Every structure is written in C-alpha cells, then in structure tokens.
C-alpha cells in the first residue's frame, strides 16, 4: 500500500461542467476526485497503485470510452471501471461488460445510485487488493521451501497421514513430522485447513497466476 490512504476516484469526461458537478457531488461523501479531460493524459498519468475506482464517459471526441476500457484491462489495471453514458443501448452495455467494466450507468445519473456504486467499487477494490497481496506472499513463501518440503506439502494436501507419507517417500514418520512442523512455520499457517486453502493451488505447478516456465 503506497501513496495515499483515502480512496481516489478518477473522473474522465470531455465536458467541463459535467466534470465539475460530478466531482462536487462525489466529494460530498468524502471520496477524493481527480478529473481528467482527455483519456490519453489519464492513461499516462494516473496512479495505478492507489485504491479507488474510475468513472469513464463513453462518448468522447477522438477516443471512445470502450477502447480506453480495453486499454486499461490490457494493462492489468485493477481499479473497477464505471462507464457513464448519455445514450445507453443494449449493445453498448453488452460491450462494456464484456470488455471488463464493473458497472454501467446512464446520464443524467442519480446521486444515490452513483455514490452507492462508487463506495461499493472502492470496497471491492480493497478486497481484491488484499486477496492479490495474500497470494503474492504465499507464492514467495512457497518458493522458499526445499524440494523435500514441497514433496511433503503435496502429500499433506492430498490428505495422507504421516505414516503414509513416510511410506511413500521412504522416510520415517518422525522425519515427516519434522518437515510438517517446518512447513507450518515457514508458510505461516495455523491449521491444516488454512494450509490446504492457501497452498493447494501452488502444489505441483497448478498455480494459475504463475508465469509460464
């Protein structure tokens, strides 16, 4: 967690009056707002590490909101994106959601709807950050295990007893028990259930988030 502590809402719309009015409105619930008149400047300059959300107008001169959305997704930006439009068609809505938008609202937008949505988005963002962080930490710890420890981990997550593990690996149950204790300590888990939940994916290279070797 870097930069600032309170969530930041990015607002991109080509109309100045709309920017000002919406920024004022969003500010009334204590959210910080940064306004952008041009999508290119936004893409270049916004802080990707900060917690927050993005409010994006669909119809802008030059570059369309949908293509900005697609660019954001391609760049792996994880802030939720709320699309805002003056003329919503089903087709537009479909494209927006397919391209990864988190919400789709029509202008003129009701204040309660907008503010509730933004607060929801921020909460969602925080949670997803935490989850990502947790899995990053888990991967780091997993990487520091010795090969033998990884083998034991694999068999533990399959539900074998110490005796069975010993038999499978040609180790004495006591050695297995030692490995087990070390694992719990290194991976910083308190129970078998937690171990399995956090590390089962990483066993045997099943990690979906790991880059291809």
């Amino acid at each position: 967690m870097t930069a600032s502590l309170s969530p930041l809402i990015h607002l991109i719309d080509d109309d100045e009056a709309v920017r000002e009015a919406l920024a004022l409105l969003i500010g009334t619930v204590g959210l910080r707002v940064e306004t952008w008149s041009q999508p290119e400047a936004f893409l270049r300059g916004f802080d990707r590490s900060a917690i927050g959300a993005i409010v994006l107008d669909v119809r802008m001169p030059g570059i369309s909101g949908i293509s900005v959305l697609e660019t954001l997704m391609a760049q792996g930006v994880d802030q939720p994106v709320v699309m805002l439009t003056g003329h919503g068609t089903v087709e537009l809505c479909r494209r927006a959601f397919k391209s990864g938008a988190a919400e789709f609202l029509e202008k003129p937008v009701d204040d309660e709807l907008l503010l509730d949505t933004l607060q929801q988005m921020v909460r969602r963002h925080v949670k997803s950050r935490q989850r990502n962080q947790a899995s990053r930490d888990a991967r780091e710890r997993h990487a520091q295990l010795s090969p033998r420890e990884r083998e034991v981990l694999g068999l533990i997550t399959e539900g074998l007893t110490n005796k069975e593990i010993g038999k499978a690996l040609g180790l004495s149950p006591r050695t297995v028990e030692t490995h087990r204790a070390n694992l719990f300590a290194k991976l910083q888990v308190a129970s078998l259930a937690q171990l399995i939940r956090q590390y089962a994916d990483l066993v045997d290279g099943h990690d979906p988030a790991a880059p291809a070797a």
Partner: protein
Amino acid sequence: MDHHNRRMSARLGNRLVWWMLAWAAGVALGATWLGMQELRRQKDAFETDARIIHRLLSQRAVQHDAVLATLTLRAEDAAQADDAAWRRLGSVYPQITAVARYTDAAGWVSEATAAISPLAAQARLRDESLRLRQAVLADAALERGHYWVLQAVPGAAFALRIDARLMVPWADWPMPDQGRGSDVRVALRWQGSELVLQPGLDAPPRRMPTPSVTFGFSKSLAAQSQPFDVVVSGAANPWLFPWLKALAVAAAWGALLLGARAWLAQREARERAEALLRMGQIARLNTLGELAAGLAHELNQPLTAVLASTQAASRLLDDDPPDVQTARGAMQQAARQAQRAAEVLARLRTSIGRADPGAGEGVVDLAAAAGKVLYLLEPELGAAGVKAELVATPPSVQPRVRGDAVAVEQIVHNLLTNATQAIRASGVSPGRIVIELSTHAGQGVLRVTDNGPGIAPDLRERIFQPFFTTRGDGLGLGLSLCESLAAGMGGRLELEPAGLTRQGDLNGASFSLSLPLETRA
C-alpha cells in the same frame, strides 16, 4: 435537373416509338384482314359470275341439241317434211346461221349462201351420230367463230352452223354492256383453238398497274355434242380495297392506344410523385433521426451537470454544519447549465427550419398545384368513394403565391389523404372534399374541407405535434411537417375553428394553408 429531363425525354421517346409500332402493327393486321376479306369476296363474286356464264352458254348449247333432235324426229316422217320450217330456224335462233339437210336421196342440201362445210359433210360423222344416237360436233375450228353440229337418223341428217359469238345471251349476262369494260375474260376452248367471247383484261386501256391475284375457272359446256371448255379468267381489283373501313380501324385502334397510353402515363406520374413524397419524408426522417441523436447527447451533458449540482447542494446543506458557500456555488452552476440546455434547444429550432432543403422558391399557382394533386390522387379518391372538387371564391380569383411548388403539393397531398382516410374510417358515404381557393389580406388561401367526422375538441391542440396520430398506422409526422413547411415559406397551416366551415353542408375538418401572395414588382 437538366440531365434528368433529357434522360426522361429520351425514355419517353422510346416509349412513343413502341406505341407507334404497336399502332402500325394493329393497323397492318386490320388492313390485312380487311384485304383478305375483300379478296375472298371478289373471288366468290368471280366464281359466281363464271358459273352463271357457264350455265347460260350451256343452256344455249343444249338448245342446239334440242333443235337437232326435233328436226331429226320430224325427218323420219319424210313425207310430212315441211321444207320451210327448217329454213326459218335462223330467225328464231340468231346463232344458227345455216341449216343443212341430208337425205340419202338428195345428199346435203342447204341455203346457197351457207353450204355445208366439207368437213361436216363426211359420212363418218353421220355414222357416228347414228351410233351414238345424238348430235355430234362437226368441223369446229373455234377461232373462226363458228362450228357445225349434226345429227343423223337412218336415211337423213340435219346440220346446224352455229355462230358462237351470237350464242352469247347478253341480256342475261352478269356483266353489263355486253361485257365491254369488264376485267373478266371469257373464252371457249376446244382442241387447241380458242374463241374469245369477252376480252376482259386484254382489252386496252384497262391494264392493271401491278401484277395481282388472278382468278380462274374452266368447265366444259354441259352439252354432249359441244364439250367446249368455258374458260373464265379475271384478276383481283386492288382499287376495291375498303379504304374507309381500314381508316376506321386505324382510327379506332389509335384511339384505344391513346387511351391506354394516357392511363399508363397517369399511373406512372402518380407513382413517381408518391415515390418523391416518400423519399422526401424519409430524408426528413433521417435528418430528424440525426438531429434527435445529436440532441440527446447535447442535452444530456447540461442535464447531468444540473442534476449532480443540485443533488450535491442538497447534501452539502444536509451536512452538520451545512456548507452553504459550496452549496451556493453548486446551485449557480446548476442554473448556468440549465441555460446551456435552453440554448441547445434554441439552436435546434432554427436548424430544423433550415434543415428543409427548400430547393425552389418561386411563384405557385394554387389552382394548378391543387389540380395536379387531384389528378394524381384520382384513383385513390375514386376507390374510397370520395368526390373532390376545386372551387374558387369568388370564381374568378386565381391566387398566385410565393413558395415552393413541390412543398405546396406535398401539403395538399397530405391534407387530402388525411381527409380521405378520416372519411373512410368513419364510413361516411358519399365522401366529399372541397378545396376552396380565396385571397385574404395579402395572402392566398387554400382550404381543404371534408364531410368526415372532424377533429375532437380535446385533440385540436395536439394534431400538429410531431408523433401524434389518431391512426393505428402512420408516424404522426404529416401535419407537423406540413406546418413547418408552410412556416418555412412564410405562411401558415391552421385548423379552422369547428362549426365555421364555409362549405355549408360539410361539417368535417377544415384546414387552411395561407401563403403570401406574389406581388408583381
């Protein structure tokens, strides 16, 4: 526009050629048929005449046989032979120019001036006659003009010299004036020789100018002793072709084609006009659609700003303590944005006025425009059982106004179709529409009144609104577009107050279009 006209007239030219070809073909067919009828008539007439001629000549020939038979019968009573009787034959039968009598005792005896020909005097002829027991031909070289017939009984015989030309019964002859002036050639033929009784075509000066159809007839006389062939020949007379009938056919066919062409032209004109109208409406709708889309976007921005600003102000005022300063700013912003929205609408109004291409601004003769639309709608009015009339008040007035002729026609077209549909929907019969032209305060007025159900009082205000319609079909744009068209030309389209129709018994709806009169400079 000029290129379009040229192409149109080229196509029309082609069309005219086809119509003329059709007329020519029809006339040719008719003339050919008439010609063949006439030819058949002439042929029948010829054959009838030929048969009559044959019959007449046969009758005469048979007379000769009868005379000979009588003579030979009486000759058997040689004792009662009355010499004088057979000498008098010539006066009864002019063609008998000589008579000769044969007896075994005296041989052949005849008048001094008409001795029997040596050929006829041969005994073998008598034998033949005896054998056949009938008269026989003796010495017939027809080109001389006469021949002998004789009949024999045992011991006696009689011979007659016949002058063939005198044989012809001109009194009963089918051709007048002894065949002089007739085209028909009549001849007797026998064994290579021919005697012409009536020269026909060969006689000058009636030589036909062109080779023509010839008629022929040939039959032998019905007399056994004189089996000459009666040969009748003639030719068709082209001068007898029924010119008058042919002209009548050509005229009737031409009239029929002209009628068909006019009907087709009217239908084509109507279809073209309707296509133009439809295109115009579609073009306007497209413009409207685009205007609407742009409008939606342009109004959305200020509206969003107004809503957000006022809602923010509301929240700020709910704060504890209320942030009045910021709230005030927000409300001011809201007001500015509302004004911005108003400007967008103002611009829209002027741009709609200009969006009408309004190609031609000129002088429009209201009577001509109304007449043209009536002509185009004739079939539809008829189908709906609606009778439409165009009147002027006073009858001499002919309002000429400034405006676009096409737009005026479209307005009149729209008013008439609305009226027709109202009449049809309400079932009023017979439907009546009156188009009245008049002038009033520098304006030319065209008023369309119908005897339909009229406009309900609560709908009167709304009928000119776009997208308002009382019909199941239709967009409801007709009247609003017409109103803007009229306004665009500096005029007005109005619904007359109810109960104030100037056409006495018509109590339906009445719309009046007013346009500025043309002022001659």
